[in-house]
């Protein structure tokens, strides 16, 4: 808002503390933040998927390029692990809402362990897949897409670690569990992106 003072403005209310944050009432800050987050993620993954479809559909590159093979079954098991971790995440949040602290702790711990398993398995898969980042457009896109997702899983695991530690320290309650809610949203988002990556890169 533009402001024009015609007399000395005396701020009575905010003399002893900083002013309240000013934001438009049209969109709340949390909703706006989430929209911006989703927007940036769509653009980020969208750029990589555009490259993927260009290489595979427009350029007509064989997928996977012979003689390479993608470990579809291992990735399927990994997918199952990651999807299951979303269920334990959801269970953790439902538990804390009902005041079940041990359900929360077990849910978060299981989610963290399954996420870690996913990441470790992906690392092992990289070491055994038989091609490197430099081995053509197919390999580059494969590593970029799965690696970008892996980076998101790593961030999610870091958030989960803090959430789990806080849960074991008794920080969350049925009234106050925003930290679990936000972390859960992120974790489900990571899962959604993996479903898309797995379906397009490994299956189709």
């Amino acid at each position, binding site marked *: 808002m*533009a402001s024009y003072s015609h007399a000395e403005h005396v701020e009575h209310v905010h003399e002893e503390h900083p002013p309240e944050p*000013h934001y438009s009432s049209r969109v709340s800050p949390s909703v706006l933040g989430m929209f911006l987050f989703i927007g940036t993620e769509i653009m980020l993954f969208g750029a990589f998927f555009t490259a993927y479809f260009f290489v595979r559909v427009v350029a007509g590159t064989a997928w996977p390029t012979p003689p390479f093979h993608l470990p579809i079954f291992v990735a399927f098991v990994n997918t199952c692990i990651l999807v299951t971790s979303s269920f334990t995440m959801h269970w953790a949040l439902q538990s804390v809402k009902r005041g079940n602290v041990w359900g929360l702790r077990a849910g978060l711990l299981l989610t963290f362990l399954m996420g870690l398993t996913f990441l470790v398995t992906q690392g092992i898969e990289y070491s055994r897949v038989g091609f490197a980042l430099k081995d053509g457009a197919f390999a580059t896109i494969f590593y970029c897409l799965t690696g970008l997702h892996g980076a998101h899983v790593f961030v999610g695991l870091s958030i989960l670690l803090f959430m789990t530690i806080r849960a074991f320290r008794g920080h969350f309650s049925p009234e106050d569990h925003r930290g679990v809610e936000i972390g859960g949203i992120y974790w489900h988002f990571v899962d959604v992106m993996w479903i898309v990556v797995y379906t397009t890169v490994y299956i189709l």
Partner: protein
Amino acid sequence: MRNPLRSETEAFRFLIAVIVGALVIVGAAYINTWLGVAAAILAVAGIGWWLKDEPVPGAHEPPPPLESTTPPGTHRVLVVAPPGTPSVHVDAKATEIVVVVPALASKVEALTGAVDDRRAEAEQTAATLARELSRDGVPVRGEVGADDPVLAVDDALRTFGADEIVVAGDAELVGRIRQRTTVPVSPA
């Protein structure tokens, strides 16, 4: 449109929808490639339709009325006036005044960002009214507000605690602002 990541529960439901969509696409593509493409288009459209038509929880509930507090011994007045308002009467007991003039842009102007002229009009009115209301050391500030007068009040009350709102507008606008806040509202 529903934000699929608004809460953990909604994100979980969105994940389930994406899994179902992926299964449909893979199943169709297994039968025939073009069937898979058709399934992909249908699945994406279906999820889009679900997000569009799913009612947002609490979206139809009116927002809670805004309250406002001021320090004792003060009488702060928020004046809302549309652009072009020549003058406004404010009670003499006011100790501080903020004049908010909404920049009333049309939908096309708001969408295209061509609001410079509307803001200039609002700035001019705000400056004129603030100059007119300045008297006896009473601090007066003029501001340009949102393109909706009620939103402009909403925004202003978040930074300016008011004891009274004076509205230079028709009865309908006065009524809408009264519904939005617990602060006494009076026509100018």
